[in-house]
């Protein structure tokens, strides 16, 4: 069995906020499993606001961009919004290259949120 190269932790609030703290590497290999995991989580929780915390992502390429765009699309279909939180400089570089600011709110981690 090939070990996965990513992981995540979650927190959910009563007012519909789902925070997903991603870590590891998001490449094409990891995106397959991560997509399934995130979609199950989103469909189960039906959040109004999904915050993807990217501070612990060690590597992300354009497969990661596709993953984020797909999750953003799913959330929009469900009437919710997606926020990309606390991207480190390397992740921010590729987000900026793709113009992801046009599709997502990108912010530092809100106060009180762990990084």
């Amino acid at each position, binding site marked *: 069995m*090939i070990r996965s*190269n990513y992981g995540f932790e979650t927190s959910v609030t009563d007012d519909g906020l789902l925070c997903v703290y991603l870590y590891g*590497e998001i*490449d*094409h*290999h990891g*995106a*397959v499993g991560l*997509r399934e995991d995130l979609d199950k989580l989103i469909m189960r929780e039906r959040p109004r606001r999904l915050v993807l915390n990217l501070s612990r992502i060690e*590597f992300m*390429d*354009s*497969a990661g*961009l*596709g*993953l984020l*765009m*797909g999750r953003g*699309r799913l959330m929009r279909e469900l009437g919710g919004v997606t926020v990309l939180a606390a991207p480190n400089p*390397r992740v921010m570089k*590729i987000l900026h*290259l*793709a113009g992801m600011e046009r599709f997502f709110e990108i912010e530092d981690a809100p106060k009180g949120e762990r990084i």
Partner: protein
Amino acid sequence: MREDRSKRDNCMRLCLPALSENEGVARAAVAAFCSLCDPTVTELADIKCAVSEAVTNCIVHAYRETSGDIYITVRLLREGGVRISIRDRGCGIEDVGRALEPLFTTDAGGERSGMGFTVMENFMDRLAVYSRPGRGTLVVLTKHVGREG
């Protein structure tokens, strides 16, 4: 006559099966070899990302429905920097110009960003793509690296 080692370019050649679990292997191997040039952290991250894109293209597009190998060569340039070639014997690209357009993707499912070549072009100093349908594709990435004096 003994070979003059100072005149020999340093070069790494790697052949990996086109399996997605080897994307990280390719990144790590190329990064380790490129470290000989003393790149900055940012330069090394850029190289890893560009290599990841090229290798992923081989897996996702070149050998879409088949299996095959990916041939990676990393050459350290005398003037400082690296030249990385990633070659496959897959299906080839019909229209390279179109494939290089940002956001162009053949994915109907909406899960691919179409940014692979754009990342390569922006994170490296030079990108060259050679392809023949049915014969395969060669991607050559060049980056001048090293700390300023």
